[in-house]
């Protein structure tokens, strides 16, 4: 009973995942089951729409655009979006319906991604998919989870799009396109000038054009054939946050197909500092500073004490000199002006004979 009570009590502490849960491949179970309980979730006020290009051919690349808009978000403005094959709750991943992901909106190969929404309160995410091998009608759904600006109960706000029914047509047997075995590269390391390898099918030639994110001018990349349907594409190295968009036209004697726009980002240089290194370095700096500063203190303070002592000694001598007055008629004797009596001059004591 105690265990059950403890488990029930702890459930309130595990609602939602403020700050996101990270991109991954997930069934709707995560968004539907965890957030399906009305005490843990609420309806999103946002709108979700899905769009695809007109003609979708089996076993060929297709771009799916999901737009989320008009949501009231939390202060971090994060929204998590699923692309699903159904709303069953489980086994509803795209792969369960024959789709495969070439590239997700963040450059990976996940059906669930998180993104930060700008102040325009609208975001469009694009998945590049391989359509199923068999023709026919297929449904796609988008689902989103997000927080809310006034969300004291930490509820997950969820929204689901209407289904988008896609008529996947049987492709001509020699339609040129990407190979089903190819996955678009997500990132390149900064300064990496290694060529991107593209794998195609039914293709005699390809043309690749690239442009930097946010720019309109397209450059034509140099392409060389490694072996049949494997191509090496020369795209310049990137640094920092640079993202390159590239489009591929696959051609053979009969067809020329413009493939969906792909993206390759620049990975951040992994930070290699360890906790031990940080602690040792910090302690080393502290001891060096203490050693240096305390030595300076000693250097400045000791002569100061010495000069103070010398000063007080000389002052005493001057005072003593003023008090004791020599007299030419009484060599070896000094007149003490305060005590009004003769005292022996220690520097020049009187001769016994003279006394």
């Amino acid at each position, binding site marked *: 009973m105690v265990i059950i009570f403890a488990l029930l009590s702890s459930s309130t502490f595990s609602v939602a995942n403020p700050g996101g849960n990270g991109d991954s491949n997930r069934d709707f179970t995560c968004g539907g089951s965890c957030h399906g309980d009305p005490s843990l979730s609420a309806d999103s006020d946002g709108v979700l729409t899905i769009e695809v290009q007109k003609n979708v051919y089996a076993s060929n690349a297709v771009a799916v655009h999901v737009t989320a808009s008009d949501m009231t978000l939390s202060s971090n403005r994060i929204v998590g979006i699923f692309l699903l094959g159904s709303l069953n709750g489980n086994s509803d991943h795209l792969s369960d319906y024959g789709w495969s992901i070439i590239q997700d909106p963040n450059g990976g190969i996940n059906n669930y991604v998180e993104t930060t929404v700008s102040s325009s309160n609208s975001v469009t995410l694009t998945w590049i998919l391989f359509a199923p091998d068999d023709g026919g009608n297929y449904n796609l759904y988008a689902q989103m989870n997000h927080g809310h600006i006034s969300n004291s109960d930490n509820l997950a706000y969820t929204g689901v799009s209407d289904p988008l029914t896609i008529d996947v047509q049987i492709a001509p047997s020699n339609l040129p396109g990407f190979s089903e075995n190819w996955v678009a590269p997500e990132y390149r390391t900064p300064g990496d000038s290694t060529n991107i390898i593209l794998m195609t099918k039914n293709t005699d030639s390809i043309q690749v054009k690239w442009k930097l994110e946010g720019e309109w001018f397209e450059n034509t990349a140099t392409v060389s054939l490694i072996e049949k349907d494997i191509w090496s594409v020369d795209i310049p190295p990137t640094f920092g946050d640079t993202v390159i968009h590239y489009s591929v036209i696959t051609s053979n004697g009969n067809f020329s197909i413009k493939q969906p726009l792909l993206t390759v980002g620049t990975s951040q240089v992994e*930070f290699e500092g360890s906790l031990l290194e*940080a602690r040792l370095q*910090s302690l*080393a700096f502290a001891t060096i500073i203490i050693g240096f*500063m305390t030595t*300076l*203190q000693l250097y400045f*303070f000791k002569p100061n004490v010495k000069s103070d002592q010398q000063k007080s000694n000389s002052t005493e001598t001057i005072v003593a000199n003023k008090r004791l007055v020599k007299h030419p008629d009484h060599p070896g004797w000094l007149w003490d002006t305060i005590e009004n009596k003769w005292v022996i001059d220690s520097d020049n004591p009187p001769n016994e004979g003279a006394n």
Partner: protein
Amino acid sequence: MVSAATFHAAIVEITIGSLTLAVICNILCLQFAFSLPYDRLKLSENMLITMDRAGLMGALLGSIMMPFAIFTGTLSVSGNPVGSELLYNKFLYSGLAFGFWASYLIGRIRMGSEIWKSKKTNLLQVITSILAFTMTITVASIGGKIVRNESILDLMPFWFPLNTTIIMSPLISTLLLIIGVSSIFIMYKLDDLIDSKN
């Protein structure tokens, strides 16, 4: 259960508050050795003694709390506590801040309030505490950068680098640590030697 992050926030507030008081009092202690041209700003002897003691106590409390602040800060970071340049720099600047505050305290405790009487040592103490405070607010600023992605120091035209760091190998750090400890030890021995000769 109160999280480490909450403890960290509370301890940091005590640390920064105490050290801010200390640096203000120490700057006013300049009047022990340097006379001000304006009589109105001059502090009485009693007030200066109070400033000296307040500065000492503030620095003492701040320096005692600083290791706790570092410890709770490390605990409150999820994942690798030094997973980025910012966090790594937090360790380094904490070390520098601790070094300067400890130097100030060592000087003040060993030499007493007499340290303020000489112009050279007075200036050295004030510069030490200003440098210590600069390092301290740099550490606090890194905290702001991590949590809110901004800090008050963003308003400054220039500051110490926060997003770039130098990682020294543990071997070199150990060597520096040995040099630092040795120099402190030699300094103490020299001091004793000078005292015994006098």
